[in-house]
């Protein structure tokens, strides 16, 4: 066990819990929501399905971490042709505890497009950017203090040679050990917004899975839970805010019988990868490169992935017979990705009698062509960044050592034979006033319900084309403040 839990955090033990506002999920959405509400003096209980795991008590990107901080050990898949593997954080702090930590403000044109296409009211860019400033302070968004890792440098130098726009992406980190870049501390929710929420009096119940909400017409009456030992429990509340992530928020709403535009428009960033080998040792097993190449924004972006030996082996898996010879070279290898914005869409469907929903995703022909083009451009970037040999992660891929080989890669690529994955999931309860497209209103109130809100990545109407955490937090704070304002105006 990782030691004593912080004050205000306990494993769910009571079969009856009462609170004013129940927040389901403690990730980027749930933690910020709880923090805003608790600071306003509202009684908040946060229900977290996973455990509280301290930063530093697990090796980042290890199988142990996948077991303790990810849903289903990290093995979650959106079925399709091809299927798309994804991951969900399942622990206090959710995805923020395990993600790359890369922070991107949502681009202005994107916010405007969302505002316009989904008719989101009171969505002024200045207000949102003011919240972004706050968030950046609170989680200490900053760049790496000293020189970049060799893995990052590959991206930087390759892009520079090709004349492609690139840059270091800031992360939420502190460097308390004299600015030593190798000893940064990630400013995830367990380090930032959760302690704030707890200090303001919120309670966090871990190993608390919400089975369903009991509805009376449009009003949620209580939440049913199952405790660790199998007993059933209930949590009573006046309002409930669902922040269980883009897969489990719609699943929970569906299980609770709530109808509407929920779970029909899953949006992701389909991603393909390759492994590249360099002349010298390059692999820093528990860190991720901070450089991204943004020349082809928004439809295409390149960056680095976690590259410990297990993950390097995985990247060679699709073509194991010809690529396995490289696995012992992992100290000189690093895994990189090409991510696209997708024209396709997916669905989350809760099935009766099944604990987890069916998740599907369909890539369009353009998506598949773009994945191939992205991977080819990435391979070229690797060669220009000094790679000796590049191993693209699809069945039938050639190993690449020259530009002519990149041509072969382009011609032999097929998305159906590739390992396609996504680390970002959004869009399943889109926010706005367009009733045929939105599951929640401009402030996250679920259409057709009186006291149920959503406040996580499900609200983002489309996949943003950048790491979404900043957007999730900005919206969550905005919407939580709206709730607080509503409450105080009622009291008056």
């Amino acid at each position, binding site marked *: 066990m990782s030691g004593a839990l912080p004050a205000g955090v306990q494993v769910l033990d009571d079969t009856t819990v009462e609170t004013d506002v129940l927040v389901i999920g403690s990730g980027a959405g749930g933690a910020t929501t709880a923090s805003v509400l608790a600071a306003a003096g509202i009684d908040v209980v946060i229900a977290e399905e996973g455990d509280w795991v301290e930063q530093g008590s697990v090796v980042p990107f290890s199988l142990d971490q996948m077991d303790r901080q990810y849903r289903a050990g990290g093995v979650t898949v959106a079925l399709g042709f091809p299927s798309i593997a994804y991951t969900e954080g399942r622990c206090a702090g959710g995805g923020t505890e395990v993600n790359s930590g890369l922070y991107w403000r949502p681009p202005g044109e994107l916010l405007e497009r969302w505002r316009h296409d989904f008719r989101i009211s009171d969505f002024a860019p200045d207000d949102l950017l003011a919240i972004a400033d706050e968030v950046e302070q609170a989680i200490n968004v900053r760049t790496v203090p000293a020189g970049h890792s060799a893995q990052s440098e590959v991206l930087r130098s390759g892009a520079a040679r*090709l004349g492609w726009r690139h840059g270091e992406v800031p992360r939420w980190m502190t460097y308390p050990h004299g600015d030593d870049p190798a000893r940064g501390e990630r400013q995830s929710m367990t380090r930032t917004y959760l302690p704030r929420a707890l200090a303001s009096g919120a309670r966090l119940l871990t190993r608390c899975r919400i089975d369903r909400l009991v509805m009376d017409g449009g009003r949620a009456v209580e939440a049913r839970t199952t405790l660790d030992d199998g007993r059933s429990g209930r949590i009573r509340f006046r309002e409930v805010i669902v922040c269980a992530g883009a897969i489990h928020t719609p699943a929970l709403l569906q299980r609770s019988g709530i109808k509407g535009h929920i779970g029909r428009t899953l949006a992701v960033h389909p991603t393909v990868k390759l492994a590249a080998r360099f002349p010298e040792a390059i692999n820093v097993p528990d860190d991720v490169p901070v450089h991204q190449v943004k020349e082809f924004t928004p439809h295409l972006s390149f960056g680095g992935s976690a590259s410990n030996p297990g993950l390097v082996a995985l990247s060679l898996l699709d073509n194991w017979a010809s690529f396995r010879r490289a696995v012992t070279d992992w100290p000189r290898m690093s895994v990189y990705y090409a991510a696209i914005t997708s024209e396709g869409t997916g669905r989350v469907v809760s099935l009766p009698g099944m604990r987890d929903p069916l998740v599907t995703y369909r890539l369009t022909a353009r998506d598949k062509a*773009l994945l*191939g*083009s992205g991977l080819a*451009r990435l391979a070229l970037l690797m060669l*220009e960044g000094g790679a000796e040999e590049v191993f693209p992660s699809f069945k039938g891929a050639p190993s690449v050592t020259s*530009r*002519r080989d990149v041509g072969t*890669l*382009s011609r032999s690529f097929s998305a159906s034979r590739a390992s396609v994955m996504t680390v970002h999931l959004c869009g399943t309860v889109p926010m706005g006033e367009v009733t045929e497209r939105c599951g929640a209103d401009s402030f996250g109130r679920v259409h057709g319900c009186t006291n149920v809100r959503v406040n996580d990545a499900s609200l983002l109407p489309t996949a943003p084309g950048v790491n979404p955490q900043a957007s999730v937090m900005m919206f969550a704070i905005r919407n939580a403040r709206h709730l607080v304002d509503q409450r105080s105006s009622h009291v008056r």
Partner: protein
Amino acid sequence: MSAEHRTTPDTTVVTGAAGWLGRALVHRLLDDPARTSLRLLAHDTAEATTLRAFVDAHPASAGRAVEIVVGDIARPDTARRLLHATRGVTDVVHTAGIIHPRRVRQFVEVNAGGTRHVAEACRDLGVRRLVHASSNSPFGTNPDHADTFRADEPYNPYLGYGISKMQAEVAVLENVAAGLDATIVRPPWFYGPFQPPRQTTFFRMVRTGRFPVIGDGQQRRSMAYVGNIVDGILAAELVEGISGRGYWIADATPYTVAEIVETVGRALTDEGLEVVPNSTRLPVLAARVAETADRVLQAVGLYQQQLHVLGEMGHSIACDVSRSTAELGWVPKVSLHEGMRTSIRWCLDQGLEL
């Protein structure tokens, strides 16, 4: 324009001189009195005769040293014969190639094989610079209609032609690695005077309102007026220090197919022709079917031009010329509307029916 220029060579050699781009280039070279000696390659004696007549018709051709050599570029000895004993400093512009063959294997023989022979001969015989006329084909089509090809892109050859043109570029670059001074220019869809009969069909289709626009016509296409391409070739020939580089040579921005059809319609009207507004729209599916059929045919070594062109019409082929401008000091001078008008006038002057 800070690009440093070399002096005009003593001898300029042009392959494919009787072709579309070749003749436009030869015409410009004859315009320049500093180009004292030209050596032109014609494919056969019939072509040599028309080429000679073309040269003689140029006002500045009297007394100019213009030698015409006959030979098939696909044969290994042709390039060496062509470059044998040229006078003084020699630059070579290689435009010989085949775009719409009868059999697919001609792509490899002429485009890939021919270019390799030229590149090797240039290297062995001390040519100062080789400019190779490539195409967008080694890079395929844009994966998304908002995407644009940058100066440096991965190869993604589009069928037989693309593969052969990719192999041609690889042959040039391999010789550069072995000491050859060479640059590559990549014009996409080009148009202008000296165009072959198939382009006349293009004008006729627009004039009669029957140009097949696929879907919403928002596919983006870069276009290049042949005069602008010649400017680009000359810059790629004479700018110092750019060996091994490849350059997109096209208009400053890509156009949508709908814009192209509208502009050409206007140009036709401006040249006094009656134009029927375009009403022909084909669903995207039609282009996909044509593309599949094209693929199948090419896989068995056959080539059908209309199918190929229709298959390509559903795609975007858009490129970014900013590096060409920055490094070559070259800008596209003639706009689409003006260029199309000049083209149309040239066709009418030739007695062609549009």
